Each structure stands twice: as structure tokens, then as C-alpha cells.
């Protein structure tokens, strides 16, 4: 659980930083999906 939290938090912060000017929010499910795909890769 802690490792998953660390991964999701890290991915979430990166996504937020990268998309902050777009005016579009990423849902937490999308963040979880990007984390899953990233670390599965």
C-alpha cells in the first residue's frame, strides 16, 4: 500500500505539473491508470 501510494503520488504530481496550464483536470482514476501503465512498462 505504501509503495503504491508513493507511486501514485509521484505520478499525480508529475501529471499535475505537466497539465497545469491546460485548464483540464485529470481524474484520480486516470492518474492511477497512467501509474499502472508506466510501471507495467
Amino acid at each position: 500500500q505504501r509503495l503504491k501510494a508513493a507511486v501514485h503520488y509521484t505520478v499525480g504530481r508529475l501529471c499535475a505539473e505537466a497539465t497545469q496550464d491546460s485548464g483540464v483536470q485529470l481524474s484520480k482514476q486516470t492518474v492511477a491508470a497512467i501509474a499502472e501503465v508506466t510501471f507495467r512498462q
Partner: protein
Amino acid sequence: KDWFLSEEEFKLWNRLYRLRDSDEIKEITLPQVQFLSLQNEENGLTQEPSRGTHQLSLSEWRLWQDHPLPTYQVDHSDRCHHFISIMQMIEGMRHEEGECSYELNIKSYLQMEDVS
């Protein structure tokens, strides 16, 4: 200095990113890709997602794959362009009736005298 989240970060994760049991989607998985024609014993049948788990699909939106989607810092690879051209061909073939343009195209290279 280690990989743990600090208390503050943990609270932020808990508020912004944690998937809860009360959420419709509680977990996201990327299933192992399987080719129907290469059903090997090792994988056996595809695992049915448990309740509340969303299995990411690479084929759900296949109609979207007939054109290159916008990129950001990483351009499309050659194999991606190849994939898009195959999806375009499949899409084209789906709408054909009667003769198949792909077959007509390939047949023009056929030299019967070469067939022993």
C-alpha cells in the same frame, strides 16, 4: 531521502489520488496482452476483472487508431505509423463489398509463370 512519502505527502495522496472502496473504479489494471490465435497454455483463459476493477483496453477504441493522435515531446515511432496504416487498411476493408482492393493490389504482382 528514502522512497516513503512524508506525512504531508501521504495526506495529499489520501486526498487527491487514493482510490476508495466507495469509488466506482477501485483499481486499474493493464492486462497481459493476449493474441486470440496464440492462446498459449501458460496464460490460459483471460482473468475476469474483479468487481470495481477496470481493465485497461487496447482495443476498445480501435476506431480511433486510423489516424496519428497528437503528441507532445515524443513523436510517433515508425512502428506506430505502421500500426496506423494497418488500422486504416482494416477500416477500408471493412467497408468494401464484393472485391477486395488489397487482393486486387497484391494480385497485380502475381506472375503465374513463377508459380512452379
